């Protein structure tokens, strides 16, 4: 369906060369990219919520996505983006820098004692990296770069190319395998780090591996689509209400749910104001928030009747 709708209505079975080009070179990679980005962000959100035992956690907390955005913005501002692949690499380095800083803070004693300290430092770092991005935007002023920078800040799938699709697909497969292997450890972590340790898990080890996989995946997703909020936060909650908290089930279903949600949101973003495009973040928030509230309400009612 996502393939068929757009500024130019095309049937998937159209044989006209122009339409075929739009279909295979623009629309199909874009739809696939939307699905992959949505899946990646939702999967990362589910893992982060489990890892930090905090319902507010998502790839944006801890500054991973903000770091990646700042990295991408810096690459553009320095005109390094004339080199192929420079922007995703810049985004990844930014994400790694953010997570390294958070991780250094996590090594200090006060952060080990208090998970909230870690989350708060993540929020502070996110603000710091956002400031870097904003500064670059302001500094580059009205130049051509500014438009490209805004793309990163608002997020969007307009730049979809096959190479992005393949790159993200590969990362999602690798990181997804790692994360799934540790799904049951995340279940144990729900009882707290000490209890997980009594069950034979090494919490510090687990944290390191999961943070690595999540950073990699988030950075690549941000590199190809900019910052798209809300998916990573909301999809795991929705799925937890539907399939329960078991991460072995929650992680794959969150990835699927994120893929479906973002594909739908992107289809809406492309069509409601066609030929203009709405930034997709507006759609994710407009669709996601009411649905989330609905699910919360329903659960409250079920809880009351049990």
């Amino acid at each position: 369906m996502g393939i068929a709708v757009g500024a130019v209505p095309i049937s998937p079975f159209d044989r006209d060369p122009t339409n075929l080009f739009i279909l295979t070179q623009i629309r199909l990679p874009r739809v696939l990219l939307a699905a992959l980005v949505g899946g990646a962000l939702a999967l990362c959100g589910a893992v982060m919520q489990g890892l930090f035992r905090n319902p507010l956690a998502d790839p944006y907390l801890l500054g991973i996505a903000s770091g990646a955005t700042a990295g991408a913005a810096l690459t553009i501002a320095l005109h390094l983006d004339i080199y192929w692949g420079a922007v995703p690499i810049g985004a990844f380095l930014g994400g790694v820098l953010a997570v390294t800083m958070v991780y250094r803070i996590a090594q200090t004693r006060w952060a080990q004692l208090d998970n909230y300290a870690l989350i708060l430092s993540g929020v502070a770092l996110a603000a710091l990296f956002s400031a870097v991005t904003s500064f670059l935007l302001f500094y580059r002023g009205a130049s051509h770069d500014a438009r490209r920078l805004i793309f990163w800040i608002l997020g969007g799938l307009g730049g979809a190319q096959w190479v992005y699709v393949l790159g993200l697909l590969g990362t999602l497969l690798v990181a997804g395998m790692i994360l799934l292997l540790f799904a049951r450890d995340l279940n144990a972590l729900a009882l707290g780090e000490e209890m997980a340790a009594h069950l034979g898990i090494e919490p510090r080890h687990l944290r390191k591996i999961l943070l690595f996989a999540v950073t990699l995946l988030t950075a690549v997703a941000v590199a190809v689509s900019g910052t798209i909020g809300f998916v990573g936060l909301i999809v795991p909650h929705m799925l937890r209400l539907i399939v329960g908290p078991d991460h072995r089930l929650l992680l794959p279903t969150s990835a699927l749910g994120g893929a479906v949600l973002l594909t739908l949101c992107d289809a809406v973003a492309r069509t409601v104001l066609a030929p203009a495009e709405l930034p997709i973040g507006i759609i994710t928030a407009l669709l996601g928030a009411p649905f989330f509230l609905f699910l919360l309400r329903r659960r409250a009612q079920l809880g009351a009747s049990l």
Partner: protein
Amino acid sequence: MIRLENVQLGYDGRVVLSDLNLEIAPGEVFGLVGPNGSGKTTLLRAISGRLSPQAGAIYLDCRRLNQLSPKELARELAALEQEISCSFDFTVREIVELGRLPHRARWQRLSAKDHAIITRALALTHTLEFSDRTIQSLSSGERQRVWLALALAQEPKVLLLDEPTAHLDLRYQFEILGLICQLAATERLTVVLSLHDLNLALRFVDRLALLSEGRVIASGVPDEVLVPHRIEQAYHVRVRRLEGDWFIAEGVA
């Protein structure tokens, strides 16, 4: 069997407990009592392998504790924290299933044998009837039994409990300690538990150690350790032993 030899415990150079020499026999219910901050939790953490001794050695069945990997240790020994919170609303059965983690490789699914062990752990703790309910829908007394079922699903030889009766009303205190003692007898479990209530300690444990000011000031059977002058020494409270099993506090010493 658990043996502590000249153990010294603490955090970051600060010493909490020293000169610990204890032997806990298989199948024994061993109590740790002492005032707040006397090191009961620290000692339990050390026996669980989560805190390395600053000096001395702790042995579990003649093997030094630090020679066992976390997973091996989790097959021998189950430990419950004083306050366990569950950040997501798992069902009781899902939680008890976690007890099988140390027995399976990462990619292995639960076998029929695992399921049998889980069901048995649920039955032993009388939690089978609400095993499909979620943890947050239970009362604190029921939850305490679920944590116990989780520990039993590990099939441990040793069970460490940090104040299992905290936050429970009188009835649940008796119920949970009765259950623990019964399990120690039927499952041949060695139980080490910390307790605040001396009356409960007197009634339920086989032997105990009284901790105060960084040392074990007495250990042995409750009737010999929990005598008024030792309690006054440890807690600075004057007490009188009533007929039978009870103490009554008479005022601050």
